[in-house]
C-alpha cells in the first residue's frame, strides 16, 4: 500500500512540476546558447527584465518596512481594542482573496487618467497608471499580506515578556526593538522577504492591467512572456521564462533554507 502511495506521489510531482520545467529548458535550448542569448538581449527583453528588477526591489523594501511595523502593531499595541485588531487582521488577508486582475482594475479605477486623483498627479507630471508608479502600487497591494503574515505568528510565539523586561531595565521602544525583538523575528522576516521577492517577480495579472503592457515602456518580464506567446514567438518566450524559472528555483531554495532557520 505504502509503495503505491509513494509511487503515485512521485507521478503527480513528475507530471505536474518536473516535466514542465524540463520542457521550458529544452524549449529555450532549441537553438542552443545562441538562441537564448539573442532572445534575452533584445531591447524589449532587457527593458522588461530591468522593470521587473526595479519593481521587485522597491516593493520588497516598502512592504518589509510597513509589514513588520503593522505586524508589531497588530500583535503588541495595547491601545488597540481586540475587536479592532480582529477586523484589521481579516483585512490584512484581503489581497489574497482578490484576483490580481481585479487588483489592477482597482488601481486603474482609482488613479487612472480619467479620475480625480489621476489627473491631479498627471498635471504634476507624475504618471501613475500605465507607468512605473502604478505597477509598483499594484504589486504592493498583491504582496502586502506576505510579510505581515510571516512576522505575526513569530511575535505571538515569543511573547511580550522579554520586551517588558527590557522596559523595566530602562530601554525605550527603538532600543528594545533592535536588541530584543529583531533577533527573534529575524528569520521570519528573511523568509518573508524571499516570499515577497518571488511574488513580486512573478506578478502578472495586476501588472498587465495597470501597465498597459507597452513594450519598452511598461513591460515586465512576465508580461513579455505573455506577449511572446501571443505572437507565437515560442523561443523568446521560453528564454525569458527560463531566466524567471531559474531565479524562482534559486528563491525556492532560499525559502526552504530560511524556513529551516526560522523553525529553530
Amino acid at each position, binding site marked *: 500500500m505504502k509503495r503505491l502511495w509513494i509511487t503515485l506521489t512521485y507521478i503527480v510531482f513528475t507530471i505536474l512540476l518536473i516535466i514542465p520545467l524540463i520542457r521550458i529548458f529544452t524549449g529555450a535550448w532549441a537553438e542552443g546558447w545562441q538562441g537564448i542569448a539573442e532572445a534575452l538581449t533584445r531591447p524589449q527583453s532587457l527593458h522588461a527584465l530591468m522593470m521587473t528588477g526595479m519593481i521587485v526591489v522597491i516593493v520588497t523594501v516598502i512592504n518589509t518596512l510597513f509589514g513588520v511595523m503593522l505586524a508589531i502593531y497588530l500583535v503588541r499595541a495595547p491601545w488597540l481594542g481586540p475587536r479592532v485588531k480582529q477586523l484589521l487582521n481579516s483585512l490584512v488577508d484581503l489581497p489574497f482573496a482578490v484576483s490580481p486582475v481585479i487588483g489592477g482594475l482597482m488601481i486603474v479605477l482609482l488613479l487612472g487618467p480619467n479620475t480625480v486623483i489621476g489627473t491631479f498627479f498627471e498635471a504634476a507630471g507624475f504618471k501613475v497608471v500605465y507607468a512605473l508608479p502604478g505597477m509598483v502600487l499594484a504589486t504592493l497591494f498583491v504582496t502586502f499580506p506576505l510579510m505581515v503574515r510571516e512576522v505575526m505568528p513569530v511575535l505571538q510565539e515569543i511573547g511580550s515578556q*522579554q520586551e517588558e*523586561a527590557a*522596559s*523595566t*531595565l*530602562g*530601554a525605550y521602544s527603538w532600543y528594545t526593538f533592535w536588541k530584543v525583538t529583531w533577533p*527573534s523575528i529575524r528569520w521570519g522576516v528573511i523568509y518573508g522577504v524571499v516570499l515577497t521577492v518571488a511574488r513580486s517577480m512573478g506578478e502578472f495579472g495586476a501588472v498587465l492591467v495597470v501597465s498597459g503592457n507597452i513594450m519598452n515602456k511598461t513591460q515586465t518580464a512576465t508580461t513579455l512572456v505573455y506577449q511572446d506567446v501571443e505572437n507565437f514567438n515560442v523561443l523568446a518566450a521560453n528564454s525569458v521564462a527560463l531566466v524567471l524559472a531559474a531565479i524562482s528555483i534559486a528563491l525556492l531554495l532560499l525559502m526552504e533554507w530560511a524556513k529551516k532557520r526560522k523553525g529553530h
Partner: protein
Amino acid sequence: MHIEVKDLNKHFGDFHAVRGVSFDIQKGRLIGLLGPSGGGKTSILRMLAGLEKPDSGDIIFHGRRVNDLPPQERGIGFVFQNYALFKHMTVYDNIAFGLKVKKQSKEQIRERVMSLVELTGLKGFEHRYPNQLSGGQRQRVAFARALAPEPQLLLLDEPFAAIDAKIRQELRTWLKDMIERLGITSIFVTHDQDEAIEVADEIMIINKGRLEQKGSPWDIYKNPQTQFVASFIGESTIVSDIAKLRGFEDAVAWPDTKALIRPEYIEVGRPNEFSIISATEPGRIKHIHFRGSEWMVEVEVGEVTLITYRSLEKEVLQPGQEVQVLIHRAYLFNDSDSWIMENKLKEDPMPIHI
C-alpha cells in the same frame, strides 16, 4: 524607597481585578503579596512597575506620584516568573543590558556585571546562553539582571514558581540573604504560604482584588482580622516556650521568641508509627474531631496544646490516649527576626559510617 499606594483600582474588561487597595511600604522592607491565584497580586505588582495602568488611584514613590511614569523611568527591577531572559544574549549581556542602555563605560559595566556574577554564584557561566542553564541558574541571572542598574525597588513575580521543589528551598534562603544584604526595598508575589512566612518581613494578604490584612507573619497568624485570612492560614499553634519542646532545646539561646507550629508539621501516633522515636515526646490526646477527609487532633504535650491532622487511613486514636508526638519544624519569631527551626533530633545522633 518609601512607597505609598492609595485606593488602587483596575478592571480587565468587566472583571474588577483590583479593588481600592491602599498600603504603605517602608524603605528596605521585604514584603510578600500572598493570596490565591487570580486574586490580583500580580496586577498590583505590574501596576507598581508601570507595566499596567491603574484605572484609578495613586502610586507614590518617595513622595512623587509615578502613575504617569513609564517603567523605564521608575527605577525598578523586575524579576518575571518565567525569567524572561533575552534568549539571544549571553549571561553577561543579559546582566549588562540595563547598564548598556544607560551608556555606561565598558570598564564600569564589566566591573558591575562581574561583581553581580560573583554575588549570584554564576562565576564561569558568563558566556553561556540561557538555554544552556538550569532553572535555578536562570533565575539567578534574572535576579542579577534586575539588580544591575541599582534600582530603588525590586519586584518579583512568583520567582520560584517555575523551579524544582528541591532547589526552591535553597534559592529562597539565598534570595532572602541577598536582599537583606543589599538592603533594597522588595516586593514579591507568591501563592505559597511557607514561602511568604519564611522570606518576608511583612505579608499582605490579597484576595479577590482586596487587601485583607497587612502585617508581620507573626501578627497575621496570631490575629487574623478577616474570615478569609483566618481560613487561609489554617489552624496553627502558637507556643511561647518552644525550648521546652523536644528537639528545640536550642531555642533557649533566643529568649522572648515565640514559635508558630503549622499543623502539617506535627505528627501524632502510636510509638510503632515512628522511625526516629528518639525525636518524639509523649503527649495525650485531648480532643479529636472528624473533618470529612481527615481527623483534626488536639494533643497536649506538657503545658502546650498542639493542633494537627491525622489521616483516616491510620489507626483511630481516642481522647485520653497516650501517644508520641513529633514536631518537624517551627517558625520562630521575635521583634527583629523570623526563621525556621528544624527539630534537631530528627537527624540520627549516631550515624553509622561505613
